[in-house]
């Protein structure tokens, strides 16, 4: 199996911060807005270097989204940064009307997504944002898998013309993708070639999927591992080609089953192919306080659970 090396755990939010600073130096139209979380979402580097292009909004996320929409009319490329729970949940109507429906060039940087936000608990652990955002016409939804990819996706989001929801998180997770790779929006990245099962993962669960594939290989099972870094627009070809070969699928995401990536893949398969599908996701219950590792295990999102789902999918062929 293709070997991937973890160059050291890093948080994806810091990847965003580095990406923002990098594209900010390259493009003076890039501006940033925060709602009293500029440190938490790693916008402080940008704010320090470009104080005239950083706007503090206070704890008032709704206004922040619409101010960004107004700025974009002038040709600015605004990044709004806050926790995903607020960026998608609290201000859904603002994103719907001022960003998606109005087709404004706003980049929503949604940090601290999912249960691995950890100890703060379910109030802050949004698990429905992929669903909420992919339902909006014209919204591009990106969920990079590690520090490097988050940095590169941030740069790509700035260069993309149109609304983007960029989802990342708080915990330090393995960093294994190339350091300065041009991120291709809309591409599903194939990380390993196998013949028995297709494992489609998004976010930091991609690393767990690779660990699961290693485990399965010991049993003589080989897996196609796909990093679905762009949820929308969906790279249908890469997925369908893989499923045609393997005949069964596992999806893995840090999200509710309802509205999540797995359901999206189920819809795709139902409309053009039939193959057994097992979803690794959270089934209709809220999160809770705990360490990220404890929660990943307790909610069944780690490599062990992905491998088990693969065995079930294969047995249903």
């Amino acid at each position, binding site marked *: 199996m293709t070997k991937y090396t973890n160059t050291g755990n890093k948080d994806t939010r810091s990847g965003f911060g580095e990406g923002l600073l990098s594209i900010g130096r390259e493009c003076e139209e890039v501006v940033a807005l925060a709602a009293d979380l500029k440190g938490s979402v790693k916008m402080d580097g940008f704010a320090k270097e470009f104080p005239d292009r950083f706007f*503090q909004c206070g704890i008032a996320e*709704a206004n922040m989204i*619409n*101010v960004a929409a107004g*700025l974009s009319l*002038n040709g600015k490329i605004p990044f709004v940064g806050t926790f995903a729970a607020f960026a998608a949940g609290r201000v859904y109507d603002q994103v719907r*009307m001022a960003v998606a429906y109005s*087709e404004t060039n706003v980049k929503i940087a949604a940090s601290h997504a999912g249960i691995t936000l950890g100890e703060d608990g379910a109030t802050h652990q949004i698990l429905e944002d992929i669903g909420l955002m992919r339902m909006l016409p014209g919204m591009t939804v990106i969920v990079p898998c590690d520090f490097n990819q988050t940095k590169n996706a941030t740069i790509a989001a700035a260069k993309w013309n149109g609304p983007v929801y960029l989802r990342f998180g708080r915990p330090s997770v393995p960093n294994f993708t190339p350091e300065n790779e041009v991120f291709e929006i809309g591409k599903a990245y194939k990380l390993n070639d196998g013949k028995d099962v297709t494992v489609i993962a998004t976010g930091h669960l991609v690393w767990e999927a690779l660990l699961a594939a290693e485990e399965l290989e010991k049993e003589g099972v080989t897996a196609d591992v796909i990093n679905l870094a762009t949820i929308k627009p969906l790279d249908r070809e890469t997925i369908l080609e893989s499923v045609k070969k393997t005949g069964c699928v596992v999806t893995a995401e840090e999200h509710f089953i309802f509205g999540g990536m797995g359901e999206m893949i189920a819809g795709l398969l139902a409309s053009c192919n039939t193959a057994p599908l097992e979803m690794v996701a959270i089934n209709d219950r809220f999160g809770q306080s705990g360490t990220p590792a404890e929660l990943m295990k307790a909610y069944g999102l780690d490599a062990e659970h992905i491998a088990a789902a693969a065995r079930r999918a294969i047995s249903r062929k």
Partner: protein
Amino acid sequence: MSDIQRLKDIACQIRRDILRMVTMAKSGHPGGSLSSTDVVTALYFSKMKHDPKNWDRSGKGFDMFFLSCGHESPLLYSALARSGYFPVSELATFRKIGSRLQGHPATDTNLPGVFEASGSLGQGLSVAVGAALGKKISKDPNKVYCLVGDGESQEGQIWEAAQFASHHKIDNLIAFTDWNGQQIDGTTEEVIGPDHLDQRWKAFGWNVVIAEDGNSMEDIFSAIKLAEELQAIEPKPVMIMLKTVMGKGVDFMEGTCKWHGKAPKPEECEAALKQIPETLGDF
């Protein structure tokens, strides 16, 4: 003919357009549209620097207007058509399937003159603030205008925009409140008082100018002049409180919430049109 008289004539025609559009569509919001007609006329036909034939959504080099209370779309559409953004005949398509004149203003129909969708209340002022901030950092000296409803000001986001504009010294923005005291469920005091809107804006760090008759062209221009003088002295946003009459110009629609979101029947429209002279020719 004086410029004020010219504007009053245009306002008459816009009021006729509003009444005929909502009657033909059998739906829409005549009450607030009629109460705000005079200020929007003053902006589009006198005050604002704009180029209807060469409009683009960036608004660069021009003044920009945002209708935060998007349900007053018939007013906006009539003002845009009558100032040359698109053919006046298109007003007949308002709220019909396939029309660029959606129930609430939209950008995805490529209707010239609409900068941003509005209609979900409380959001347009924030966009106007963002556009004004964009002009400031782009060194574009032109102004941004925004119209907000008094009922709409019950939305929390209005006050988020208020504090942001004040903190960031957005002094190229003049906003207006259509202070007619009516909303769908009754008077603003009945629905959720106390109003005290002028005091609220002051408390949020804005300069406030009151137009005692918000349906008078003379009072509107005096208020705008005062707002400009204040902005020349102090780097602050200004709110002009327009004391208007809901349904202005049609006796049976004035001063009541009944016509907020209800279209007149054809015979009611006829009765209303008899009260307003046709100055520029109906669409």
